[in-house]
């Protein structure tokens, strides 16, 4: 007697779900069974939503954020500072900055960071597009808002080097003590940079 297993269609569904980020074999199986057991067209509408989103949303060729037929909510929005450009690793990094309300300029997502050990070099990122934008646009300042890990830092250093002669002001996000965090939990380099990038309070000494 041969061993009973799920029908081929179910196994295929599990196989696809397993490819999703953060989903293991057990999770994939659970989701597949759940989808198959729903009534009222839940699975059909799920499939249609995926298809619609994939067909109607694409990467904005300018900033790298998500764009639709109505255009890019960032590049085509009004009231932005045309002189400041903020460089981030991923398009998903744009939203936290937007929500903070601290920045109202334009964005440029690199779609990654330089990491030779993972075989990612400058040519694999949207650095050429960045250079083009800076040449053509009215930008005066570039803010580097990349991660503080080794690869993020190396990418920042690399950009500083290649942007050096573009006549732009280059800044990077200040590093400091997290809000609500004590000094004792900060490492030395964080403290060192926090002291270097300290802000003046009051008018003493002027």
């Amino acid at each position, binding site marked *: 007697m041969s061993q009973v297993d799920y029908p081929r269609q179910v196994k295929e569904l599990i196989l696809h779900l397993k490819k999703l980020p953060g989903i293991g074999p057990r999770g994939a199986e659970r989701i597949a069974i759940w989808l198959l057991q729903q009534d009222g067209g839940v699975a059909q509408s799920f499939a249609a939503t995926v298809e619609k989103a994939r067909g109607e949303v694409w990467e904005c060729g300018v900033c790298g954020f998500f764009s639709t037929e109505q255009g890019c909510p960032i590049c085509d929005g009004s009231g932005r500072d045309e002189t400041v450009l903020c460089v981030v690793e991923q398009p998903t990094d744009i939203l936290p900055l937007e929500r903070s309300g601290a920045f109202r300029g334009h964005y440029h997502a690199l779609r990654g960071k330089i*990491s030779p050990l993972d075989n990612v070099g400058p040519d694999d990122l949207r650095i050429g597009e960045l250079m083009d934008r800076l040449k053509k646009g009215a930008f005066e300042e570039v803010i580097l808002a990349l991660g503080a890990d080794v690869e993020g830092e190396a990418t920042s250093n690399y950009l500083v080097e290649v942007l050096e002669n573009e006549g732009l002001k280059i800044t990077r996000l200040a590093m400091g003590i997290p809000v609500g965090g004590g000094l004792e939990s900060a490492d030395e380099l964080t403290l060192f940079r926090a002291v270097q990038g300290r802000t003046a309070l009051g008018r003493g000494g002027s």
Partner: protein
Amino acid sequence: MSALLTSLKLNQFRCFTALRLELGEGISLFVGDNAQGKTSILEAVCVLLRLQSPRASALGETVQFGQREFAVAGDYGDSELRLQFTSSGRRLSVDGETQKRSGDYLRASGLVVWMGNDDLALIRGGGEGRRRYLDFMAGQLFPGYRTALKAYERALRSRNFLLKRDKTPAWPQIDAYTKLLYEHGAVLTARRRELIERLQPYAVEAQCQISGREDEAVALEYRCGSDSSEALHTETGYDLAAVLWERREEELRRRQTVAGPHRDDLLLSLNGMPTAKFASEGQQRTQALALKLAQSRLFLAMKERAPVLLIDDIFGELDPQRRNALMQAWPEESQKLITTTHLDWLDPEWGRAATVYEVRMGKVAKP
């Protein structure tokens, strides 16, 4: 304050499928023939308390043969520590609460000094062993040191990879890492220097205690492994970025990063002469032991907490004089876990105060 490791649990760690041990204060002796698992018990304690092994460069190497994951847990002081290693990474918890940052875990953990029969390599071997000695100590004393070391090593690997990869090296990319080496390296150099300065008086004291002589003057000195022009050296070290710029030709030829903390060294001397070249074997053994003893006394002084001493297989080898000196000089408050192949050396009086465990083929029994 003297916190104790009161229990140890291993799963699929080295030769142990499953092991539970209750540990007490004072001396625990693990007795058994070679290759029965004695050293792995000490190694597990080191992994549990410090998240690193003196015998493996990566935690994955300690997984039991044929398995893919291991777990180590134990009660240290008031905290229940647990490390789980799986193919998708490691999970740390303190009192059942997951810790995302190893720094938070280590704050609840204790200090460790490892003494092994290969400590003589500290004197006779290459600089790598001495750097590991310094890094293992500094990582326990200075918060942030481990972070800086990890970042430095990753940047170094990337930089060396780029130097090797292309026929014409991509210097703008390479220099992006030079700056990182400089920044993180500055933390390493400054802390190592501070450490050596603090260690020096304890090393002098320990050397005298072990040798029983007053005239053996030990000196420790930090040496930057860079023979560049003196002008680039400053009081606190040297400007690594400038040194590497000056030695670019050499890097192009050798295809590797030629200077930095990964090439620095700890110079050891006795009465003004390098110990490795001019001291007798006995003096060298004494100095190796003195360095480890100094480490435990420094920990006690700086952290006001006695380290756990993990002493692997050296008691049977030491002559009675050094053995007695060590037992006189080690911190009384420290918990000591000792492996040995036989107990012939054991003074009956000491024996009464110690707990003996027999280790055989991955099993532990109290006789």
